[in-house]
């Protein structure tokens, strides 16, 4: 039996995928797989009436209830949730921005360790996702495959013998599978090799999405690599393409770039990452972009052994916990942008100045 839940306690904890412990976790933050599924006897979401949505939500909820070992799964009614709470779940990567901003009946079921979540009434009736720490797609696939089997035992999916699992958008049809790996690539950015590396990936059916700044703009140096096609290949092959072929090549380039930076000027690099840590642990007010920028440097410093005593898991958590909705949940009240900047600085100081150990963050 799954249970209705609030999640005030989540603000003080972190999802397992942020531990920073899986394979290649100095470069790979997380491995995520999602499956898109639809019920056979309802229109897709865009053509659903309000009543249809309510009916889909109730049907799926009831079916989930019949799954025996879902004892601790939290069930959150997103329609009833405040905007700040929805934003919190987006920052947490448990729901998508799209479902947060949508209207009408919609929900999410989350396992207590935050390794999987099931969104109901997103673009498709069901979006199942599994997140693991580090480069761990094969075991993420195993987990999501089992989860999908359990749901399939209770729900009649829309499936076509030729086209596979039917989805609202034809770009997802077939397997309904999207594999995404989140990478931290600061050295490729510093050495200006990043575009070149990704250009070389263009012909192999993967999408690379970057979020970074130019010149004086701040940056987090994070990139997401995903499969582009979903039809005509087995799930295991799509997983292997990303995990065994594409991502290892990017990791190799990033490691080479890091080696180069260390050899070229270890002192400069050491100075740069130490200053970043200095700013983060002493600033009195700091924006979210600036925080991302310096945390990225510190993260690289930790992974290169230039900064000691700061676990990488702590840095990973700080990326999430310093975002606007998280700060406000932690404070238990709404904060304007300048108050958040002060609160963010206090929070960072607390966790980086050695007063608290990693365990206290949990």
């Amino acid at each position, binding site marked *: 039996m799954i249970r209705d839940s609030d999640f005030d306690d989540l603000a003080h904890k972190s999802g397992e995928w942020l531990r920073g412990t899986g394979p290649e976790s100095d470069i790979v933050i997380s491995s995520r797989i999602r499956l898109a599924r*639809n019920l*056979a*006897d*309802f*229109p*897709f979401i*865009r*053509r659903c009436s309000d009543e249809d949505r309510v009916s889909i939500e109730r049907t799926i909820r009831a079916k989930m209830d019949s799954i025996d070992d879902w004892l601790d799964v939290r069930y959150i009614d997103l329609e009833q949730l405040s905007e700040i709470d929805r934003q919190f779940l987006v920052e947490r990567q448990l729901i*998508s*921005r*799209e479902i947060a901003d949508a209207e009408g009946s919609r929900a999410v079921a989350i396992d207590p360790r935050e390794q999987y979540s099931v969104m109901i009434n997103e*673009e498709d009736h069901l979006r199942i996702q599994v997140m693991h720490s580090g480069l761990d797609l094969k075991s993420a696939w195993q987990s999501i*495959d089992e989860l*999908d089997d359990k749901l*399939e*035992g209770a729900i*009649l*999916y*829309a*499936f*076509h*013998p*030729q*086209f*596979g*699992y*039917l989805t609202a*958008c*034809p*770009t997802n*049809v*077939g*397997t309904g*599978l*999207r594999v995404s790996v989140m990478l931290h690539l600061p050295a490729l950015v510093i050495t200006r090799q990043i*575009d070149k590396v*990704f*250009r070389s990936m*263009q012909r192999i059916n*993967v*999408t*690379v*999405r*970057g*979020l*970074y*700044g*130019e010149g004086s*703009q701040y940056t987090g140096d994070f990139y997401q690599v*995903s*499969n*582009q*096609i*979903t*039809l*005509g*290949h*087995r*799930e295991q092959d799509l997983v292997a393409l990303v995990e065994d072929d594409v991502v290892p090549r990017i990791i190799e380039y990033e490691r080479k770039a890091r080696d180069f930076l260390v050899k070229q000027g270890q002192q400069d690099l050491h100075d740069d990452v130490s200053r970043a840590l200095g700013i983060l642990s002493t600033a009195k007010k700091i924006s979210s*972009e600036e925080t991302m920028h310096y945390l990225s440097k510190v993260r690289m410093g930790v992974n290169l052994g230039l900064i000691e005593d700061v676990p990488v898991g702590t840095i990973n958590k700080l990326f999430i916990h310093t975002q606007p909705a998280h700060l406000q949940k932690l404070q238990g009240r709404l904060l304007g942008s300048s108050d958040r900047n002060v609160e963010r600085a206090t929070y960072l100081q607390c966790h980086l100045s050695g007063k608290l150990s990693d365990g206290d963050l949990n």
Partner: protein
Amino acid sequence: MKCQYCEKPATFHITELTEPGGPQVMHLCEEHARGFLQKEAATPAASIAGALAKQLDLGQTKQELAELDQKECPVCGISFFEFRNTGRLGCPFDYTHFSEDLIPLLINIHDSVEHCGKRPRRAAAADSHAELIQLRREMEEAVEREDYERASEIRDELHRIEEAGSTEIHASEEEE
């Protein structure tokens, strides 16, 4: 620098690396950047429009295109024109109803038209999607007017279709 889509300052500079014409830099405010980054992989509507445009260039006349745009699904009522504009289909039966029109698009996006991955143990036959959606609607209407006998008949009928589908899938597995 201003955001490409509004008057707010552009604080996010995002490079879309998989554009066919090489990397494309986008300058966006936080709100538009968030929307952009949340979208899955390729922007579906744009790639569908692009794929269709290519397809239509290859010989379909304006008149044929206009006729195709008018074509509507009898179950959900979506027109091909609406699908082209939103990039989203209306119901599972669209894959059967618009099957021929979708195939060139699927080849363009996936370079394939044949699913070869996981198959559910239970599934309704593809051509029964229309019937399933319609029967379920009828069942809800029956419940609303408190005609529980009719609702129960429809429920049995739905079960029958579901069962037939699962037998079919198992039969085809055995053939392999």
